[in-house]
């Protein structure tokens, strides 16, 4: 393809545009696309955003560039801190999390946006694949105003009919009131963003649905690499490509190390 941006850059720009000024963005480890997206949004249109990286809360709208650290677990972000949330209070103002936005990956993600970081295999005592564990995803996805499922690759192994184990509840077995019935106050997953496309959840049954194909990707490509039948509206829209300004800001003020621009198209 002759595009002058990578799928990872497109993903970051799509997410950045969807973030609103004033929101609190909570970013976990090892999600370079998300790290770039929140920085880009902060620089471009979010002077009142608060960014929380690993317990360090910051607003760095005054800085010209927000370089991404070379690796996710870099404690040097403390140089930008306005406060720390790791004072033993990490979960002490959950009531405020309706203003918070969270991002989640997954070993498996199913047709209703439930996700699994625990492992794969029918017998929990003898997993075929042991995952890293739920991190803070069960709590965060319960309470945040909305969250994004962001996947590094789009494959039928990841996007499955039904998770072997659910570590974060999306829309359960479907239905607009699936979360309300369990008393979960958060708004649930909004988009699932992959290197091929953006998916959302149908209003009525909360089944995952094709929202936009990335430029150059066909509907058949996506369905082939998805482990369940994807609801598809007609006509399917295309993910708007990054503007020149977005790409410029992303590359010169955020992703200085080129973590996203050097990426290849994820499969």
């Amino acid at each position: 393809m002759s595009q002058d941006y990578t799928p990872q850059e497109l993903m970051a720009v799509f997410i950045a545009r969807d973030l609103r000024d004033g929101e609190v963005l909570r970013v976990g480890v090892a999600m370079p696309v998300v790290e770039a997206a929140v920085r880009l949004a902060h620089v471009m249109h979010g002077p009142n955003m608060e960014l929380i990286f690993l317990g360090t809360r910051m607003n760095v709208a005054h800085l010209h560039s927000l370089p991404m650290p070379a690796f996710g677990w870099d404690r040097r972000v403390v140089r930008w801190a306005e406060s720390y949330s790791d004072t033993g209070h990490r979960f002490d103002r959950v009531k405020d999390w309706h203003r918070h936005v969270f991002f989640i990956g997954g070993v498996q993600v199913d047709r209703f946006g439930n996700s699994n970081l625990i492992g794969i295999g029918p017998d929990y005592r003898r997993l075929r694949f042991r995952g890293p564990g739920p991190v803070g995803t069960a709590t965060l996805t319960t309470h945040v105003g909305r969250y994004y499922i962001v996947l590094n690759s789009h494959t039928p192994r990841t996007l499955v009919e039904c998770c072997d184990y659910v570590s974060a509840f999306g829309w359960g077995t479907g239905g607009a009131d699936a979360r309300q019935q369990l008393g979960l106050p958060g708004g649930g997953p909004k988009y699932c963003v992959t290197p091929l496309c953006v998916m959302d959840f149908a209003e009525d049954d909360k089944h995952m649905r094709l929202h936009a194909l990335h430029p150059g990707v066909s509907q058949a490509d996506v369905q082939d690499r998805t482990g369940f039948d994807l609801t598809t509206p007609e006509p399917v829209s295309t993910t708007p490509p990054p503007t020149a300004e977005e790409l410029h800001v992303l590359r010169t003020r955020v992703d200085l190390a080129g973590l996203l621009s050097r990426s290849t198209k994820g499969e």
Partner: protein
Amino acid sequence: MEPTERQQRIFDETDAAAWVESGMTIAIGSPPPMALVRQLIRRGFSDLTVIDSGLSLDLLIAAGCVRKVVSYYAGGGFGVAVAPSFRRAVEQGEIEVWECEEGILATGLQAAAQSLPFLPWRGGVGTSLPQINPDLKIMADPISGETLIAVPPVKPDVTLLHAAAADPYGNVQHLGGPGWLDLFLHRAADRTIVQVERIIANEDTRANPWATTIPSADAVVRSPYGAHPYYSRGFYVQDQEHLQAYVKAANAAARDNRSDDLARYLATYCREPATHADYLERVGIKRLLSLYEY
């Protein structure tokens, strides 16, 4: 005899490790207090229940110290999706996992710290966690009947932490905030041992008492560069090369059954050095000095 002077709580890492016994529940903070972790391996403790995350957990598993893991995250943190020795040991059924999640673990630690037989939590409702960890009970709240998870106390016998500084009486001060669940792990534990980059005077503590994050650690261990190969906020960054070498060795052992490199790593860095200073000598001063913060 009544003591006439205030007693200091400074121990070296060898004496501090004597507070641990095989079979205990040991909590490990963030960054991991590696000087103490290496002492656990050197001593050959076994059957530990370990509350930890990341590669320090992996190292303890690789060294055979662990029977049960209480963890919300056993990834490697830099492109290592799952810590290799952890993954293998769990898949082989060699160790048990008390499956939890960050909010649930914090809740269990808080219950222990508050001498409560449980605390309720909402995060995890609707997930598989109560099925795969039967200690987590689904409950109806007694006021309005909402569905919650009752989390039992999670009580470390000993919590091991790393911090920037402490005075001789156990007043601990962090730079850039304590890590993750450090304060929860301390409050829930019977005893807390904190290794520090520097021991400061009590006068320094009183010059900024608000900065005291842990007011009465049971033991303070002086461990400059003690978090290596991890970072220590305000002192040094992570030694990526060292960690990657460990991951490579652990991967070879876990995936390909080639355990020579891992055995060599454990011998060189954990079992042979008698003291923390001996360990640092093997790492080398040039490498340590290269880990400046910017």
